[in-house]
């Protein structure tokens, strides 16, 4: 279970973004367990965009 559900929609958006770019992605709970989802999203977008 992720920590209190923070950023769940953002996590799912990030999951979809990674999947469409790479064809695969970490599971949604793995993404949502990141210490700082916003930082992770910016870094992933910076690499894949």
């Amino acid at each position, binding site marked *: 279970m992720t920590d209190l559900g923070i950023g769940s*929609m953002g996590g799912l958006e990030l999951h979809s973004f990674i999947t469409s770019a790479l064809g695969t992605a970490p599971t949604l*709970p793995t993404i*949502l367990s990141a210490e700082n989802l916003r930082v992770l999203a910016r870094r992933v977008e910076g690499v894949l965009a």
Partner: protein
Amino acid sequence: MKLPHPPPGGADLWLLRQPEPGTCTGVLDLAELDENERRRAGTCRREAGRLLYSSAHIGLRRLLGAYLDTAPGALRFGRAPCPCCDRRHGRPVLQDTESTLHFSLSHGSGMALIGVSTLPIGVDVERVPTSDTARVCFPALHPEEQSELSAGAQAGIDAISFGQLWTRKEAYLKGLGTGLARDLAADYLGDNADRRPADWTVLDVPCGPRHIGAVALHVVQQPVQSVTVHWLPIDSLYQGATCVVDKQEHLLGELVA
């Protein structure tokens, strides 16, 4: 101040709005948080995020402390076993207490929602999503939820309807204890309450014009009797404020602010 427990089959919901950074009239007592909570607060890069996380967790501790007549800082939190794998990352629980109270906390984008009940409970509050977010997340929903949202949606998915459905789903999954590890398409949490998961009552919670919320209550042992929404003012969480003030008479005014 001691708060009476919610009645059997009842739930108290507490809404907390994060003040704008720089407008606080008091200081939050971070000493009431445990080491893990302080560490998590420290990972928030923005002041607003730190403020919301800290105030939500201090609010949870002050409320549970008032219900249980215990010092907020003395409460110890743990996790129940996950229903999927039995590892201890399921619903948050209180340790070292005989209390039968259940609780759930959600916070995001300026608002926190705390639920306390005699029944297993899950809550969720979210800012109304953008239409882009709704469009991206839409395929993950239950097929019948997708059909409902698509019906008559010529200009795209309605973000408020999507957000309301999402908060119902997340509140239910938090109450269940699986969180988002459970397939989002596995359960129907659409507008037809009769088709939602058996043994659960899921209600939409009014959270003002910019947020949406929901609560899920497990009703195997007793039906839901009453759910009361309270306002938790931020100034009741500052250092030196010893009581939780229920300004329920201000709830509507706060919601439209």
